[in-house]
């Protein structure tokens, strides 16, 4: 009885989550211009977006910014995480700590607005930077590094400290310890942080809206402005492509991860069995 109730809830949950996305995908193949009325099957909206320079430019700008943001966030985030985990007391640690975490809790509107004011002031004083790709990148990185730092920090905390001590014991200078032992050990979390900040940057609207200048509209901004003017199936088509890319990425990633995990577990138990046999012999 209980299990049936549970199943019902589960299905209701899935419906709530996925039906809107399914509708969106289905209507991207709609021959009619109406977003809610089915007018036959067609690929025409996909052809339209391929020739829509605003969409194409927005897409490439978004990708560029996301790539740069993810990379910068991971580098800065690693440094920040390292400082917080390894140096238990330095001047201004508490302030540093809260500054690293602040962007996670401060409303994005405020982050965006304050960055805008800051860049406007800079522009007035120094004549630069002009609002555009650079300012968006800087804005995204300012909170991307917080996410990266949190992820990397948790990995660093669980890292067996004796690994680094062993490296030092065997003759590594502090910097060698970092890139020969620490870095390979936290590589997976760096990857995770990179992917997360990449996606955060890719679909960010609020900060981007504040920091973009003329001619620097990212894809989310393009979609948003289109939606404001009245929905049109090109938006559905863009969304469908995005969903497809993400789905393939996620499924491939998790398949690979679970295979790695299984292989590791199998190797471990094999080693254990061997050990037991050796003891018996």
């Amino acid at each position, binding site marked *: 009885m209980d299990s049936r109730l549970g199943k019902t809830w589960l299905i209701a949950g899935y419906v709530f989550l996925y039906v809107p996305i399914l509708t969106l995908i289905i209507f991207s193949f709609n021959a009619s211009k109406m977003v809610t009325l089915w007018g036959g099957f067609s690929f025409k909206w996909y052809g339209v977006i391929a020739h829509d320079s605003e969409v194409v430019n927005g897409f490439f700008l978004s990708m560029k910014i996301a790539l740069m943001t993810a990379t910068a966030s991971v580098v800065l985030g690693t440094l920040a995480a390292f400082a917080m985990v390894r140096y238990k007391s330095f001047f201004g640690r508490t302030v540093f700590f809260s500054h690293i975490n602040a962007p996670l809790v401060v409303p994005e509107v405020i982050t965006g607005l304050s960055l805008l004011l800051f860049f406007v002031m800079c522009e007035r004083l120094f004549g630069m930077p002009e609002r555009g790709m650079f300012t968006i990148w800087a804005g995204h990185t300012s909170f991307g590094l917080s996410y990266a730092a949190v992820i990397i920090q948790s990995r660093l905390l669980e890292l*067996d400290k*004796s*690994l680094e*001590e*062993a*490296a*030092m*014991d*065997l*003759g*590594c*200078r502090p910097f*060698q310890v970092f890139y020969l*032992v620490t870095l*390979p*050990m936290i590589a997976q979390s760096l990857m995770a942080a990179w992917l997360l900040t990449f996606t955060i940057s890719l679909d960010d609207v609020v900060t981007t809206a504040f920091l973009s200048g003329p001619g620097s509209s990212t894809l989310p901004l393009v979609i948003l402005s289109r939606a404001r003017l009245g929905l049109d199936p090109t938006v559905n088509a863009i969304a469908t492509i995005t969903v497809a890319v993400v789905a393939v990425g996620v499924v491939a990633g998790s398949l690979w991860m679970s295979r790695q995990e299984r292989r*590791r577990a199998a*190797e*471990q138990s*094999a*080693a*254990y069995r*061997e*050990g*037991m046999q*050796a*003891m018996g012999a």
Partner: protein
Amino acid sequence: MADSVANSTGRGDSSQFLKIDRLSKHFDEVAAVDNVSLDIKKGEIFALLGSSGCGKSTLLRMLAGFEMPSSGNMYLDGEDIAKMPPYERPINMMFQSYALFPHLTVWENVAFGLKRDRMPKDQIAERVEAMLGIVKLKPFAKRKPHQLSGGQQQRVALARCLAKRPKLLLLDEPLGALDRKLREETQFELVNIIKSVGVTCAMVTHDQEEAMIMADRIAVMQEGRFLQVGHPREIYETPSCLFVAGFIGDVNLFNGTVEVDEPDHVIIGSPECRHFVNHGITGTIDMQVNIALRPEKICLQEIEPTIEQRESAAEHGYNSARGTIDGIAYFGKFTQFHVRLESGKIIKASRENTARHEETQLERGQQIYAWWDGSDVVVLTN
């Protein structure tokens, strides 16, 4: 003072290969290691033994260079190492968790330290092969650590430490991560390897059996100080204080008062019985002392012990007490009896099970005599 330090730390003095001189480490006013001095001979296996928090690990970590001493000096082979960073010390440490690099193969793990020394490639290969040979892991060279059993991982860790041919090998709870059966086998193997390589070794352990089996000498530590330093037998048979007696092995303790104090024997009275000790002690009449007696030194029998049975106890009536058997614990190789003496005190006595079937089976509730030899009594004066 400066003179004596300079003299005693000259190279070639193998009895002071490692010299620790008045070493202390304070963590926020708390002394983890408190003014400790120690000499370790070349080629010796030395164990620091104590319960957790006694400072043994801090001392080991200072030797490795992971903790800076608050005061004091350390000399290895005449060289002052106290201010040397860990990567320059000719010392290698085997960690309790082994700390094998999970992203490197067995071969790469062993070669890791050699590569840092910029040793030529062919020499590295040669040395790694030799090390893997010593620990019998040649067929596993290409495996990653997680593909090895616990015992194999421990051997990789050992090979990695020995590969750099350190002057001093540090072992942090070397067998702590292994299960019991494997531990017993490994103890001897580990000692054999260390002895065959000839490296001087300092180890830390909380397991008194492990320390006794492996070490040439043991230092029992408590609250950052050495309570007793000596050979395992010395520490077991002549503990210097109550803590050491109780920490190393099982012990029965009696409170007593010195009644007769002669140069060649002492008689101590306690509520349970009068103890005849066949050697002199540094004490005076009426001094309160503790008496320690190991369970295996106590004999149990149904009839009163005869004079012939205990010649050295000399006079009748000493070193024996009547009691009832309160509990029997069978351990296989020996059986431990809990005996309630007439005074109400419960003592432990153990008997080795040399024969498969004993003729005289002692039973619970049985009345027996417990007696021991005057030379087995340890008098602790403090």
